[in-house]
């Protein structure tokens, strides 16, 4: 066990625990956008910044990626931290003026859009956290999407912005996206995501549409469970 202090509270946690988890387990809230338990961390949003004091040195670190250390003193809400966090939010707001999630976070901290950071018009709600790409690779295992280009042009897309041949229409990317950037339209019989339309399958028992056909085929192929057994929705199983 490692012993340390967060916001004046003595805390101990397993070695390897991130400061963020240690704080949350002890009822100390740190705002985050990109950290998600389903995927590996990217430290992209920078919202989770805290101040870490070790001996005489104090520095700003991302709590979602900083493993706890013996004797460190963490401040999650002091003036220095709040200034950085507010700046991060100003920049996120400038990138994604359309995002209500970011706007809500900003208003909670009393942050307004800054005229000195010109608002982007072409980024929609994407903060480039890569969670969608990670879930597609690490959890789903198809890697249908990725980033393209770099710098100001960086964006998330399917290769060549075309219909992906490997996408199964599971919607994990849309689910994990912290800002709701990824558009997914599900009607009764179809689901549209990344420009491609998937046919939904009806449950063999209740007849309700419940999952994209391609997703079931993929699960069957990966797990070896016959397609027939997967053709029943979770409610009827």
């Amino acid at each position, binding site marked *: 066990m490692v012993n340390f202090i967060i916001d004046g509270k003595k805390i101990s946690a397993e070695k390897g625990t991130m400061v963020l988890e240690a704080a949350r387990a002890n009822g100390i809230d740190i705002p985050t956008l990109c950290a998600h338990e389903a995927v590996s961390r990217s430290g992209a949003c920078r919202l989770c910044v805290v101040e870490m004091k070790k001996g005489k040195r104090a520095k700003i670190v991302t709590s979602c990626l900083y493993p706890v250390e013996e004797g460190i003193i963490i401040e999650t809400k002091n003036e220095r931290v709040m200034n950085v966090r507010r700046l991060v939010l100003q920049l996120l707001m400038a990138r994604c003026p359309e995002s209500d999630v970011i706007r809500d976070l900003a208003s909670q901290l009393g942050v307004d859009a800054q005229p000195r950071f010109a608002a982007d018009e072409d980024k929609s709600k994407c903060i480039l956290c890569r969670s969608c*790409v990670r879930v597609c*690779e690490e959890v789903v295992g*198809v*890697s249908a*999407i*990725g980033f*393209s*280009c770099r710098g100001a042009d960086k964006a998330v897309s399917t*290769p*060549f912005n075309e219909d992906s041949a490997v996408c199964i229409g599971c919607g994990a990317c849309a689910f994990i996206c912290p800002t709701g950037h990824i558009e997914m339209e599900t009607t009764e019989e179809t689901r549209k995501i990344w420009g491609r339309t998937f046919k939904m399958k009806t449950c063999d028992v209740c007849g309700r549409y419940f999952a994209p056909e391609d997703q079931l085929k993929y699960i069957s192929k990966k797990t070896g469970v016959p397609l027939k057994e997967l053709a029943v929705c979770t409610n009827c199983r």
Partner: protein
Amino acid sequence: MKKATTTEAKTKEIVKKHGRDKSGLIAILQDIQEEYNYLPKEALSAVGNELEVPLSRIYEVATFYNTFSLNPRGRYLVEVCAGTACHVQGAFNLKDRLQRDLEIDCGQTTKDNMFTLEEVRCLGCCSLAPVVRIGGNIHPYLTQNEIPGILRNYRKQG
């Protein structure tokens, strides 16, 4: 030497040369671009299949580096240096002139597929500024007046 007929076969050959190792991806892409002047879509798919790397990852690499082009390029790549030294020496005038004479903008290719015009950062020979590189050849201390003659020469070479 027997020439591979399809893009896919040629790509496979290139991948094999690099030992089918995914850490050689950039070198593989460079060789493909050497062959075709750009990265054809089928080639990227073939690389993915051969290396067992998802196409989305390969697309990330291919779009990340400026040196790679996903659009067909002309026979000669015309690179106007816009690094500091060349800029100070008036490279922007050369760029204007090239755009006018080739009747294309930066990033475009002439109708006859001879030239693709691009602006690049420092070519590493600032003492020769302003510099334009055409088909790999450095043209040092270039002036506007020399441009029509130079282009004519390349066209003649075919």
